[in-house]
């Protein structure tokens, strides 16, 4: 039983990697006709804006509250800007955005592709000698990969605004200290860490979403299960990758 489970898992990882290679091969021709990709950036990105901005605001506000409470015990509440900026840029921005992305855009992708499979649309494309990997999968994958870093950037900005709102406006942290300490302490490497993470998360979430959709059994139950799996697998994968990337960045 145990070895069968391991064998299955290894097999699945292999299947996802092979699928990724097939999708990547179609990506150049998909980028050459960017209209579909732009449309998918809109679908995955623009349509997630509200949830991303709302969540960013609240996460930033909580950071402001907790950060202030913590820092005040050491009499260093002026460092709130640094704490909020680093927390958002390096961890909360990429991770929370990716988790929301998996729930909002990933599930939409999976169920859309799964339903296209169930209603023979993908097979019909194959029968018209049109590769669905190029016309359906690659644009959606690329749209997700491109949208994620943009969403993370927006999340970070709104989050900082939220932290500032609580810290400076409500808790009366000195605005000059808030911003200048932030500017002095945040390094380019910190920003890079956030960018690398957001790109990796976008890659992982988009890949899982299109893979699950493409391979969903063509039934109501099959598409439903695939959608659930998209959320579960992407979320766990994001947290796992987050740990590995954090370790890699701190290890330097």
């Amino acid at each position, binding site marked *: 039983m145990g070895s069968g489970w391991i064998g299955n898992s290894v097999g699945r990882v292999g299947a996802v990697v092979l699928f990724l290679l097939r999708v990547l091969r179609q990506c150049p021709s998909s980028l050459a006709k960017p209209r579909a990709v732009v449309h998918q950036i809109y679908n995955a990105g623009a349509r997630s804006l509200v949830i991303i901005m709302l969540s960013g605001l609240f996460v930033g506000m909580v950071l402001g509250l907790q950060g202030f409470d913590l820092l005040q015990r050491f009499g260093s509440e002026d460092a709130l800007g640094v704490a909020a900026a680093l927390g958002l840029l390096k961890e909360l921005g990429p991770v929370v955005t990716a988790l929301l992305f998996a729930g909002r855009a990933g599930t939409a992708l999976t169920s859309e592709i799964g339903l296209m499979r169930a*209603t*023979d649309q993908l097979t019909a494309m194959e029968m018209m000698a049109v590769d669905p990997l190029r016309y359906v999968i690659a644009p959606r994958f690329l749209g997700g990969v491109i949208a994620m870093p943009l969403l993370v950037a927006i999340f970070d900005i709104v989050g900082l605004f939220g932290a500032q709102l609580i810290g400076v406006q409500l808790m009366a942290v000195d605005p000059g200290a808030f911003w200048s300490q932030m500017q002095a302490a945040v390094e380019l490497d910190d920003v890079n860490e956030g960018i690398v993470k957001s790109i990796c998360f976008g890659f992982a979430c988009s890949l899982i979403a299109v893979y699950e959709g493409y391979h969903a059994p063509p039934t109501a139950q099959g598409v439903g299960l695939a959608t659930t799996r998209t959320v579960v697998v992407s979320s766990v994968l994001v947290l796992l990758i987050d740990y590995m990337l954090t370790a890699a960045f701190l290890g330097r």
Partner: protein
Amino acid sequence: MSAPPVRIRDLHYAVGTRPIFAGVDIDVPQGQITAVMGPSGTGKTTLLRLLTGQVAADRGRIELFGERVGELDKARLYALRRRTGMLFQNGALLTDLTVFENVAFPVRAHARLPESVLRRLVLTKLEAVGLRGAADLMPSQLSGGMARRVALARAIVMDPELLIYDEPFVGLDPISMGVIVRLIRELNDTLGVTSIVVSHDVEELATIAHRSYLLSEGRVVASGTPEELARSDEPVVRQFMSGAADGPVPFHFPAGDLASDVLAPTDRTRVRS
């Protein structure tokens, strides 16, 4: 003389341990309408999937335009599919595109045509199925019969040499059905295409098919013109053509003894054969 559009020899195919085909031979002559009939579950749709290279046969050879389908790489297979049009049971229209864009889809994917030429081409094909006026509708706004006619326009937009119809009559009202029957006939006559119609609607097929194959239990049990099949004395053919519930094709799915199943102790939740 070129190779016949479709030639199937000694086809074997099984799903798991359940054999679907055990030695099927089918020939589809150029320019004719060939019907493949059979009760539900005889693998008619599977036959089309095998024929178009979506799944691979276990044994035997399937030739499409003289090339063995199972041995082709993707590029060669796609080249063959461009010469083939297929009508799916439910139409399989792309739900995020308008009727016009659905019909234009294969053209846009395969050819670079000026928009004016493309427009004329698509509208001509839509006119042929009587739906030019529906060009701007979305697939969700179409009835089942209309969706299938749009799918038919899409299937013929690349001027295929072979048209494959998967259950084209299922779930249509008598009028829509009559329209589809007429369209299949007209397309065959006017475009000179070869047609394969997979269906179990005996009466509709009898009016259009040049030749019919009757499949049952993995084999071709009868073939011939519709008249020949109608006159056949074979019990299987008689049962299928007249629609008797029981006969050589059993009404019951294979199961164990009824009495022992029904009267079994209540803790037995599964029926075993």
